[in-house]
C-alpha cells in the first residue's frame, strides 16, 4: 500500500489501483454521512478530484493519487457511507483505477514514510 500527503491510499494489483482514504483521514473527517464515487469510465489525472466524502460538518474532496481510468466504484458506500469510518483501509475503498502511468505509484510514500509524515502533523 502507498500513501499521499492528502491521506489517500493506493493498493495495486497488476495494473489496477484501488483507492481509499487512510484511517487518519477518516478519523479527522468524523462520521461520514455521504460519499460520491466517480462514474465508471471517467479518466482522472493524478491530483484531480476522484470522489467526495461528506461528514455532518463539511464536504471534502478525495484526490486521485494516480492517473488512469475508473474501472470500478464502490457503490455500496451509497447505502452505507459509515463503512469509510469503520474500515477505511479495506472495505471503505472508493474506486479502482486502471493505471495509465504506473511510475506514479513508486513515487508515493510507503507505510513507514507515511507514518513519519503523520508524526510531523
Amino acid at each position: 500500500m502507498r500513501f499521499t500527503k492528502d491521506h489517500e491510499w493506493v493498493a495495486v494489483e497488476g495494473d489496477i489501483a484501488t483507492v481509499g482514504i487512510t484511517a487518519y483521514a477518516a478519523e479527522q473527517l468524523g462520521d461520514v454521512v455521504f460519499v460520491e464515487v466517480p462514474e465508471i469510465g471517467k479518466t482522472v489525472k493524478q491530483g484531480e478530484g476522484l470522489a467526495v466524502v461528506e461528514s455532518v460538518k463539511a464536504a471534502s474532496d478525495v484526490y486521485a493519487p494516480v492517473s488512469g481510468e475508473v474501472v470500478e466504484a464502490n457503490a455500496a458506500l451509497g447505502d452505507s457511507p459509515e463503512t469509510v469510518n469503520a474500515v477505511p483501509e479495506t472495505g471503505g475503498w472508493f474506486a479502482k483505477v486502471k493505471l495509465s502511468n504506473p511510475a506514479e505509484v513508486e513515487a508515493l510514500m510507503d507505510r513507514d514514510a507515511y507514518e513519519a509524515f503523520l508524526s510531523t502533523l
Partner: protein
Amino acid sequence: MSDQVLKKTPLFDAHVALGARMVPFAGYAMPVQYRDGVLKEHLWTREHAGLFDVSHMGQARIRGADPAKSFEKVVSADYQGLKPGKQRYGVLLNDQGGIIDDLMTARPDEDGLFVVVNGACKDNDYAIIAAALEGEATVERLEDRALLALQGPEAAAVLAAHVPAAAEMVFMDTAALTAFGVDAIISRSGYTGEDGYEISVPAAEATRIWNTLLQDERVRPIGLGARDSLRLEAGLPLYGHDLDETVSPIEAGLNFAIGKRRREAADFPGAARIGAELAGDLKRIRVNLKVLEGAPAREGAQIADATGAVIGVVTSGGFGPSFGGAIAIGFVPPAQAALGETLNVIVRGKSQAAQVVASPFVPNRYVRKL
C-alpha cells in the same frame, strides 16, 4: 485572520482536557467536537442532555432611565412590553431594514436589560447600540461572565438537582438567582430545538460549574459542530449565514421578531421596507428544503426551479442526524416557497430534487407550560 491571536473562553482548558478539537470561531478558540464526534454528540443532545460552552457570545447590560424604550431605537421587538422574568428574541436593524445581528433580551431583575448577542458581531453591535442610545442609556459588556447551555430532554432534571427553581421556569423565562453558589442568570431557552437552559455565571466559577454538570452521567460535552446541526434541524437561522445586513426579518421569516405595537408605530430602522414587505412586496423568503436525492446541499449551493433557472441560494445546509437526511435553509421568491414545492439544488454541477418543507425539520420540544 490566521495571524490573529485567538481569544480563549474561561473553559478553554476544560475543553482541551476533554479531548476537544479546537477551531477558530468568532475570534475564539472553540471546541468543534469532543471525542464522541459530531454525530454522536448531536444524537446525545436529542436523547439526553448536552453541555455547550457559548461564552464567545456577547453578554451585556443596557441601563438607563427607560432602557427598553431607548433600545427600541435600534431593534424591532416590543421590549417596553417585555415582562419581568421574561426573555424575547429581536433583531438589530440597519436603516435599510437589514439585520445587523439577532439577539435575546431579558429582564431577569431590576438592573436594566440583559442582552445576549452573537460572538462574531458583538463589537459592532455594542458600538451601534451605544451610539444610538448615547445620552439616555449605556451598554456595559459583561466580559467577566461565561455562558453555558444545557440542552436536551434530560436537561431540566439535571439542572433541577442543582437549581430547584429552574424546574419552575417555562420556555423564555429568565431569572437572576443564586445557583451553584454564585450569581447566575438562567433562561429556559437555547439553540437546539430541545428543552434546556442558558446559564450565565461568573467566568472565575465557570470551570467548576461545567465540571459539576458533567459529573451527571446524563450530560456530555457538545461542540459547535453538533450545535450547528441541531439548530439547522430546529429550523433556526444562523447569523452570518442565513442572516446578514442585506436580509430583512420578513425575508428571513422572523415576523415574530417585530412586535405588534412596533409594526403599528413603524418606529424602527428600515420600517419603510419592512412595512412594504409585510404588505406583500417581498422578493425572497427563507425556506426549509429537504434534499430528496444525492449529496447534502451546503451554503452557497444554487437553488433552481423545474426549468433549471436559478431562483435562489442555500444559506445553510448539511446532514440532519436526527432527521436522517440532507436538509438546507435557503432563500427563494415567495411564488416558489409554498410547502410541497419541488425545486432543485445544484451540488457540484448536478441538479438534485429538493422539496420545500415545514419548519422545524425535527419537532421542537420547548416546555411552554408546566
